[in-house]
């Protein structure tokens, strides 16, 4: 068990490092869409909730799980939707226009 946790620590360390490296380089132009994107990705928690509901170990867990799925799923849909809407708005003038 403890080795599973250690392992999770490794994953966390690596992913955290990637997060810092990648996000530090994201142009300020995109900070708002970035927020909504990470938000949608974060909603991957839905998989945990799904299993909770699906396994239906106790009614209590199933009820909490259902609410959790609803909350997370609305983030998934809403997050991706608005991110895409924002990005569709970003248009480049053709470089010729540039000084």
């Amino acid at each position, binding site marked *: *068990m*403890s080795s*599973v*946790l250690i392992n*999770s620590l490794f*994953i*966390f360390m690596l992913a955290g490092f*990637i*997060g810092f490296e990648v*996000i530090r*380089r*994201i*142009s*300020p*132009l*995109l*900070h708002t*869409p970035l*927020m*909504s*994107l*990470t*938000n949608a*990705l*974060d909603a*991957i*928690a*839905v*998989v*945990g*909730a799904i299993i*909770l*509901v*699906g*396994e239906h*170990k106790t009614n*209590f*867990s199933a009820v*909490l799980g259902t*609410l*959790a*799925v*609803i909350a*997370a*799923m*609305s*983030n*998934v*849909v*809403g997050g*991706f*939707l*608005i991110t*895409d809407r*924002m990005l*569709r708005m970003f248009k*480049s*003038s053709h*470089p010729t*226009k540039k000084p």
Partner: protein
Amino acid sequence: MTTQPFMEIVYLVASALFILSLKWMSSPGTARRGVWAGEIGMAVAIGGTLLHHGIVDYKWVAIALVIGTIIGIPLGMVKMTAVPQRTALSHAFGAFCVTLVGTAEFYLRSPNVPHFMMGVLCCEVILGSLTFTGSLMAAGKLQEVLPQRPITYRGQNIVNLGLLAIAVAIGIYLILHPGARQLFPFMVGIPLVFGVFMIIPIGGADMPTVISLLNSYAGLSAAAMGFVLDSRLLIIAGALDGSSGFILSVIMSKAMNRSFTNVLFGAFGQVQAAAGGKEERKPVKSVSAEDAASILMSVNKVVIVPGYGMAVAQAQHKVRELYDSLTRRGVDVRFAIHPVAGRMPGHMNVLLAEADIPYDHLVDMDDINGEFPQTDVALVIGANDVTNPAARTDPSSPIYGMPILDVDKARIVMVIKRGMSPGFAGIDNPLYYMPKTLMLFGDAKSFVGDIVRELGGVPAEVASAK
């Protein structure tokens, strides 16, 4: 979360896609591909999970997914100006989900939860629940259903920290005695209360910084949930979200030169009171839309500096018209974007993009500041603090040291705002009293509209003449 190799592979793919998604997000050219990668990853992960052997009851899963989608769509269609509160709301949802799952897991597993595992579980639940109520409060303040102004009383910080301390103490007790089920509700409840109290003393304008902090909390709690469920995918997503929220808050506080503590303990509230409404009596030069228009007609290089006021007034489309008629006249128009102009990171970019202004004409502070000396007119539209020279010159100013746009270096400065009232920082702006500065008093939207009308008639012909 499972040991079916097939699902693990699915999750591996999803993780890779998530990382690529963020990577592609780094430039406007590839950003949309990034979103697609994220969507595919998500679909793969959810699809794979549904095939999980353990799942016996599909009905409620399906129902929940449908309801979630139905709620999600309107959340995805909100107006661009509502994005800040929408973001806050979605943090609340995320944290809600995490807290619920954490709670369920606890009651399924306790009393036999290993110490370390219980520790992680406590982090998950405490972070989750305080993020939940905190984000709801933040959303409320941004939506202005709650009072924007900071509500402070003496001993506030002691009370808050006390609450948090109790929650943590309970957590520690639970780590040692995972069987104490009756205590768990308190470990959920107290942080819920703390979340509310935490936001009360913080002014509405500080919410964006708070939101990104809450963003990283949400990420961390999700990662903790990943630890509990041994889901690498979840750990990765959580870590990415956490670091992103953290980095954004750092960027913001830097650009506002404030410290987290400073934001969290609402120090600005006092400053506001103290610095507000001083030296209003100095004379300013105020001119009409005609005069402004006639000046703008005659120059070569204009830099437009949008700020929170443009957002409030919803003036971006009028600004677009101004941009058009000026460029049609051959005036070189650029936009100077301060990292914290408006009320959320990238606020101005999104609004101007919405108004179809090409993003390569939106210039970051560091790149544009060099150009102001060669600029004929710096047209400030509803921006204030981000143009305040006091940040450069007056060590006594509360925003001293905050990097600003050097509009005061331009040949002429025009400022569109409704009155002399200060901006977010609540301090007066020497810029307005400079001889080169012309104040254009009025609502951003209508005033810009007037200028466009003044410029009006001609461009069509000019265009055809060209």
